[in-house]
């Protein structure tokens, strides 16, 4: 109840501050075309499972993403640690 009251107050303030703008949406025909294109691609994307084992894909995709972003995370952590003077790490 307390948390929800605070969050609702935040929402009201944000709506008040951001409410001054009213922009039009993208053209509906453009959105429909985009949607059709996505439907065409993703309704047939399951065929990748014929060329690569589905379980391998499910396992590899998160692991590969984790490895690729690992260095960025590592450099971020090292940057923070380097900012702490009494650790004496360069």
């Amino acid at each position, binding site marked *: 109840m307390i948390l929800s*009251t605070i969050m609702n107050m935040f929402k009201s303030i944000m709506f008040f501050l951001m409410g001054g703008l009213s922009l039009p949406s993208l053209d509906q025909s453009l*959105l429909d075309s985009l949607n059709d294109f996505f439907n*065409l691609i*993703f309704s*047939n994307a399951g*065929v990748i499972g014929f060329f690569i084992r589905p379980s391998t894909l499910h396992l590899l995709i998160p692991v590969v993403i984790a490895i690729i972003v690992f260095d960025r995370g590592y450099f971020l952590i090292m940057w923070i640690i380097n900012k702490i003077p009494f650790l004496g790490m360069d």
Partner: protein
Amino acid sequence: MNYYRGYTLEFKVWDNSNDYTTFDYAYEFIPYTAVIENGEIVSSGDTTFNGQDLAQYLPQAIIGSAPSGDSPPTGIIGGIYSLFVPDSTFFTNYFNDFNTFLTERYGILYQPFTILYDLLNRINNIDFTDQEISIGPFYAPTDDTIVLIPLITFDFSSFDDEPKVAYLHNLYYLLVDGFFIFGLIKLCFHEYNKIFGGAKK
């Protein structure tokens, strides 16, 4: 034979609009003895609520517990829990309100985020076991009754109906798995050298 008799304690929690939620806390674990013949209770033990039961079970009912699974919050702990933790639908409704507001007010600026969300959702929901490809039908731009390209469907998994092809397909899967594992190890070495090999990016 031992049976159980139950009683229910009712709690009410008021919110700021003077509306209250009622929840019951049922105890069904007070054993008593009964004799049943032909589906009817012939004689039973003491089923009245006595002071000993009250002393034993009332503290538990008052203290209560936080919700777990389908059981609602109960007692004082449940009350405190409800005071701080919003119900399960609160966050969904909260972010839906934001989404509606941004869609209505920011239109074209908010559209890329909606499309990105849709795209990620579609990627997440790809069913790799459904190995069927279907393209079309494509109609003429000016007339929906004229079919330029009819519906073409092909099920790749139908290859596996033939046992020899299925065997070869499994061998192929094995080869591809090996290729990917090799690539993954190579990627690990590459990342290791990038981090500890002196590169700064």
